[in-house]
């Protein structure tokens, strides 16, 4: 089956006073129909820029989508006119954001904001739109939906706001929901509520979800497939089982390994002080986007870095069906050798 969205060689940059930041650099992945794709990476890795590029919601300037293709059905979203992309936003592709506290307009009621979306994309009269809005609020588990319609967002807790955001996003039955760190700002018990809700809705509605987060455990729970980004580049993608059980990129490995687990095997912890299990870690820190190291951006922190890593970005290697990695370690020995010591080949 053809995927719902195909992102090909997407490049997005920010032009700042101090120079150009390549926020998204040659990123390609697909989102299948009904699939939940987890996009994971640390802050500044470009995951949000990817999501905003899809609906062209990045402020221009300073952002510029420099190239690539985002195929959505028969259309390339990047080639659509302003009017055409607007008709897709909120309708076929909807978004929810990280900060439920600031994502709702404080001066309009929840009802106003819900009905606005509904009336924009569906030819419903006020009455029908209201009914639909209330239905959506009930769907996302907001009690007293009727009364809530007239409330302003500030009266809501974070969890409730995120529910309202989800109701708004789903009100036009989108084919794709882009969820950008939807639970990061929430407490863990509330996060559990929201994740539960999203699971439920997904099963009921059957839309695709692009789930963006920095939290690997959330990804492990939510996603069917995972895309890992580092410094604007896609470094690895695989189905969720493969990625967690046999990650191949050193960065993915480091990321997964360095998190203490809630199910940490206590027996592994020595009882004596000074002999505790040290957590594996990635040294150094994320490079400054304005002064990106040459070659593979991860090479200054990589324990397996080779000279070639400092000069050339590795190509994408398909290890097996659906598992890609961009790392010289996984490039065929031939090409490594070629890049490493070209003169040896004779």
């Amino acid at each position, binding site marked *: 089956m053809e995927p719902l969205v195909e992102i090909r060689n997407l490049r997005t940059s920010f032009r700042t006073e101090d120079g150009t930041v390549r926020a998204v650099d040659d990123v390609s992945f697909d989102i299948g129909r009904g699939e939940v794709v987890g996009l994971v990476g640390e802050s500044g890795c470009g995951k949000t820029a990817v999501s905003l590029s899809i609906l062209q919601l990045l402020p221009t300037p300073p952002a510029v989508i420099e190239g690539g293709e985002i195929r959505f059905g028969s259309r390339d979203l990047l080639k659509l006119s302003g009017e055409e992309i607007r008709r897709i936003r909120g309708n076929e592709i909807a978004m929810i954001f990280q900060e439920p506290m600031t994502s709702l307009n404080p001066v309009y009621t929840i009802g106003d904001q819900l009905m606005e979306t509904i009336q924009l994309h569906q030819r419903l009269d006020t009455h029908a739109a209201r009914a639909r809005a209330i239905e959506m609020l009930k769907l996302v588990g907001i009690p007293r939906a009727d009364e809530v319609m007239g409330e302003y967002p500030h009266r809501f807790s974070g969890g409730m706001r995120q529910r309202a955001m989800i109701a708004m996003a789903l009100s036009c039955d989108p084919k794709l929901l882009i969820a950008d760190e939807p639970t990061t700002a929430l407490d863990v018990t509330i996060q559990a509520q929201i994740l539960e809700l999203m699971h439920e809705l997904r099963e009921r509605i059957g839309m695709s979800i692009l789930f963006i987060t920095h939290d690997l455990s959330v990804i492990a729970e939510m996603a069917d497939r995972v895309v890992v980004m580092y410094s604007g580049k896609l470094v690895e993608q695989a189905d969720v089982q493969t990625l967690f059980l046999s990650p191949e990129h050193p960065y993915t490995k480091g990321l997964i390994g360095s998190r203490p687990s809630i199910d940490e095997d206590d027996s592994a912890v020595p009882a004596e002080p000074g002999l505790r299990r040290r957590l594996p870690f990635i*040294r*150094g820190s994320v490079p*400054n986007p304005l002064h990106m190291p040459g070659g593979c951006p991860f*090479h200054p922190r990589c324990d397996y*870095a080779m000279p070639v890593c*400092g000069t050339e970005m590795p190509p994408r290697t398909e290890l097996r069906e659906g598992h890609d990695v961009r790392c010289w370690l996984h490039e065929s020995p031939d090409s490594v050798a070629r890049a490493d010591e070209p003169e040896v080949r004779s």
Partner: protein
Amino acid sequence: MRNVDLTAEGMPRKKTSELREVFRHLVRNRAAVVGLTIIGLFVVVSVFAPVFATHDPLAANLGNRLQPPSREHLLGTDELGRDLLSRMFYGGRISLNIGIISVLIGVLIGVPIGAVSGYFGGKLDIITQRFIDIMIAFPGILLAIVVVTVLGVGVENVMIATGIASVPIYARLVRGSVLSIKEQSYVAAARAAGLGDVRIIFRQILPNCLAPIIVQSTFQIATSILWAAGLGFLGLGAQAPTPEWGAILSNGRAYIRTAHHLTTYPGLAILLMVLGFNLVGDGLRDALDPKTRS
């Protein structure tokens, strides 16, 4: 293999002082450069007024009154035959002095009030805030008028009056900054480390309020110059024959139809100087604000 290891150097290793950073942003802002240039010109002309002035700013020459601009008198002469340009050079001095000294007065009184009020909070803060509310309830120029009425007219009193009128502005500004900086963990850290309140206010908090104070001061110099000119215009400011711009303008008002250069040029001079400070203020605010700097 390890030669590519750059260790934990995430951020660019540039040893730039904050001041230089701000300046770099400032000079990149075209408007601010224009402002700096204007202020620079006025400062140079004011400091070297005796050098630039072609005539004695106080020497009357009744035979040569109200002359339009000419080669001898580039901006013409006033009602007593004094050279307008020379008077304006000296007037620039007065305006700059008023601006700077009144701001110093405002800062010296307002900043400690705001800092103490914001830092200690509680009853003291409530009382101080009410008092500042009352002071702010009066528009600055009115406050300045009232103060001048109490103190009497004259350049020194104008400085005091405009200074006092700016006190509540600083007090409120600094209080606000202190309230937010107080919440920063490094203040808690300083307290945890056993630093005293006075030390925390002056060493930890106030240096970090500097940016808004500097920005406000730039604007406040402009405002004080305007207030002072307004007072001069109402006859409550500098007195004859002091060549204060507002006073020159006020005197020239009687000759607006016969010798409009007496009102046009001092007005333009005030406008330019105020504009200069405002431009630099805008530039500084942008340069000091991390939000716009990114």
